[in-house]
């Protein structure tokens, strides 16, 4: 019953997007369990069978997808499970298939420069700042991926880690800054 309602909510959301003329393309089988916020003039593409839900026990968190630039692109593959994920794209974020993101964030910009005026960062360019996340990646709670990182396939990002450097495929990272570790 709950899944059916979520499917219905996804259908309504898709038709609303089409009516509003938003620059959003979402595949079939979208399930929405909680409030979803999609904003910005950039392009957002999500594959089929996506799940969007909140994290149980924290009612204030929901899925938030944002583009900060009309030329920005945010791509998410098929079978993605987004539980209270926060993704903000200024240039380009590409996320693969079958990912799991739990109460975590991905961003490809610093929003402000480190100079005293805290203005827009001038040195950020697309080839240095773009974020690529591979297939079957799992992100734990309260972790985040910062700009300019490439994360390979089958990577596990433990809860509470801050990923600042690129990660090899098949590894497990944890900590701040995130380092490889094995069990």
């Amino acid at each position, binding site marked *: 019953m709950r899944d059916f309602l979520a499917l219905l909510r996804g259908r309504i959301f898709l038709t609303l997007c089409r009516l509003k003329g938003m620059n959003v393309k979402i595949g079939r089988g979208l399930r929405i369990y909680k409030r979803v916020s999609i904003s910005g003039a950039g392009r957002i593409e999500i594959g089929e069978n996506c799940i969007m839900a909140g994290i149980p026990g924290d009612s204030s968190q929901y899925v938030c997808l944002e583009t900060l630039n009309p030329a920005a692109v945010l791509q998410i593959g098929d079978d993605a499970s987004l539980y209270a994920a926060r993704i903000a794209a200024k240039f380009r974020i590409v996320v693969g298939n079958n990912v799991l993101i739990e109460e975590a964030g991905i961003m490809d910009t610093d929003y402000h420069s480190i100079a005293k005026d805290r203005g827009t960062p001038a040195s950020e360019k697309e080839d240095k700042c773009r974020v690529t996340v591979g297939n079957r990646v799992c992100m734990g*709670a309260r972790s985040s991926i910062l700009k300019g990182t490439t994360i390979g396939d089958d990577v596990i990002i433990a809860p509470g880690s801050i990923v600042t450097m690129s990660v090899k495929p098949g590894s497990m990272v944890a900590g701040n800054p995130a380092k490889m570790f094995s069990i």
Partner: protein
Amino acid sequence: MSIDKIKSLMKRIIENPGDVLSYATGLFRGLGYLFYYKVFRNNVTIGFPFIVDAKVRIIGPGTVTIGKGCRVMKNAFKGLTILTFSKDATVTIGSKCLLGGTTIRCRGSVAIGDRTMTAVSLIQDRFFVHEDGPGIEARRRLPAEKKITLGRNVWLGEDSFVMSGSTIGDDCVLSSGSWCHDAAYQDYVLIMGSPVRSAIPIDKLLRLKGEL
């Protein structure tokens, strides 16, 4: 109750009436929670003075036991969240704990000793909450849940993470931002690093500072 105790209580009321008022409102709010869990939820047991200043959420079918005299402080408006995912899951919290901002997500068992003090922190005995989603090979090589044990009088710092398999002894301090996983620590040490690199005995630290 001796006369000295009454005198000190009166002094406390006169010096800081707001504190006493917040204690009274917390006690009143706690009575509401006690009534709710006593009547509607059989799997939750809470000891009598339960002072609540922020929201308390206990979700799931597992067994939750909270000792006497615990207080849920206002920490970043987060309150206390306890989530259990199966009927076998058990969460045990000792008496006279100061809990605020803690999130406990449990599939196996979590045991917390008496007089534990917490800031906004996460205690989780598995890496991911939603592991039974679409078939992902990467998730299969994750280890099973392991027991988490915190001793008496442990202080969890701000933004600290206690992951599966960690065993922390009595009187320990977890510094803010620390991340510990699958390791055992002795009594009375300062644990720090993300992931944890060093556990320094607090006796040694105090001797270095000249306080002992």
